[in-house]
């Protein structure tokens, strides 16, 4: 007998099927990886607007008097500085500085929402629950949220008339709670593409109405459905992290170039002592961007060499549709992590010269507010 774990489905599963999507297992969910083609979907987001189902992501709600202090101590970034209606990207670290997950913290008037990677929902929830003090309520509401991302330079035009006007005026990493496409929703100006865009969180009972509404409103603007394949090429062109590839329990945010999200000035947070020590002692490796000539693509886990010696490993790689060249990210010994330095990616018996370059790779996105995340 082979035990079979049934894959979870998002509330948009039937839409994916009828659109002809290729579905794959992603973090235990049956998700659309591609509808028409990775490159076409990618370009649609860069040039017009695309719709992503990312309902597999996890949502935790945190409330109570100590909620702010609890979250501020749990994550490395500065939750205390958040205004109501503002969101924040942050690593969640172990005591040794390794990354449990990277997540978003939303501050609403009377609670916080924490949005985590699908693959880490159970791990993060257990991790946070162990630190959660009495009086603070922490609940996993992942099954009560559908999540759609509308991303691209024309995203605001798609939403216009279907969400409060104030939502179209939101700055990057700002959100409001209101009515959109006939449903109660969190409307957030966030994304993982480098383009302008919104993420809409709402109850799964409204899934059909919101999906249909967005697709109809988007049609005149050239909106197309976009799968996880293009989501990955879009994020990689921006140098954004993919948990499990670029960062994990064994990498630190300082090594990953996420130092801007680590507020060592905070008096205490989980991982602080280890990260202070790491900073003082100096990093042994750093995550860098690599760019290659030709068309051979660096892939996750390919070794990096310099003068015949192993000096690191590729974490992510793809053929960049926007730049029309192979790009990737890799951990490399700190001494070699210099812009313009050339290393070699080992692809089987072939060695591919790769130049260390600045991230993001793609700098022409419509999201002018985009920082490193």
């Amino acid at each position, binding site marked *: 007998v082979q035990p079979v774990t049934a894959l979870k489905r998002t509330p948009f599963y039937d839409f994916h099927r009828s659109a002809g999507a290729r579905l794959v297992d992603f973090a235990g969910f049956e998700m659309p990886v591609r509808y028409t083609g*990775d*490159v076409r979907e990618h370009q649609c987001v860069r040039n017009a607007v695309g719709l992503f189902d990312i309902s597999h992501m996890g949502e935790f709600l945190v409330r109570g008097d100590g909620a702010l202090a609890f979250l501020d101590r749990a994550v490395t970034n500065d939750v205390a500085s958040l205004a109501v209606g503002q969101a924040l990207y942050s690593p969640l670290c172990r005591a040794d500085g390794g990354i449990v997950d990277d997540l978003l913290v939303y501050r609403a008037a009377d609670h916080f929402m924490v949005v985590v990677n699908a693959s880490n929902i159970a791990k993060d929830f257990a991790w946070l629950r162990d630190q959660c003090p009495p009086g603070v309520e922490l609940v996993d509401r992942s099954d009560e949220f559908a999540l759609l991302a509308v991303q691209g330079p024309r995203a605001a035009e798609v939403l216009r008339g279907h969400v409060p006007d104030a939502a179209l005026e939101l700055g990057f990493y700002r959100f409001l709670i209101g009515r959109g496409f006939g449903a109660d929703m969190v409307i957030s100006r966030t994304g993982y593409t480098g383009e302008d865009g919104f993420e809409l969180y709402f109850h799964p009972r409204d899934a059909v109405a919101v999906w249909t509404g967005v697709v109809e409103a988007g049609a005149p603007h050239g909106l197309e459905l976009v799968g996880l394949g293009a989501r990955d*090429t879009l994020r990689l062109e921006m140098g954004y992290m993919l948990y499990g590839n670029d960062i994990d329990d064994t990498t630190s945010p300082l090594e990953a170039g996420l130092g801007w999200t680590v507020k060592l000035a905070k008096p205490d947070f989980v991982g602080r002592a280890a990260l202070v020590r790491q900073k003082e002692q100096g990093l042994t490796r750093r995550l860098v961007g690599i760019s290659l000539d030709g068309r051979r*693509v660096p892939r996750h886990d390919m070794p990096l060499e310099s003068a015949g010696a192993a000096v690191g490993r590729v974490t992510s790689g793809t053929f960049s549709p926007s730049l029309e060249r192979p790009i990737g990210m890799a951990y490399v010994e700190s001494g070699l992590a210099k812009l313009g330095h050339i290393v070699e990616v080992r692809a089987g018996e072939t060695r591919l010269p790769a130049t260390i370059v600045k991230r993001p790779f793609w700098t022409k996105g419509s999201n002018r507010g985009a920082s490193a995340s």
Partner: protein
Amino acid sequence: LGFPDDVRYTAEHEWGRLENGVVTVGITSYATEQLGDIVFVELPDAGKRLEAMKPFGVVEAVKTVSDLYAPLSGEVVDVNATLSDNPALVNQEPFGEGWMIRIRPDRAEDFQKMMSNVDYEKHVEEQHA
């Protein structure tokens, strides 16, 4: 699914078409759908000797990379040079203009040992289930 019946297949999703003693080789529509947009195909030069079921090249898609396996032993007699400028042809016409190499097989009977379209379809369904 429906795969053409004028070619024969391998379990690794290559196809071969026998014409005048030479076998034209490519990858199937099922393979291209699995791979996604193909950006590069690395092929051997004409004259190279191939051994059945050994890698003879590489196909790079945006998301994945995959080895190409020789469906039978023999010598490469022709290579589809247009793929270096236009690898997307493999996605567009996997059984036609997207062909990759032509092999003169060591043993003509090896071709008959490849799968029929009916068997290949069964193989794909089993892999997909």
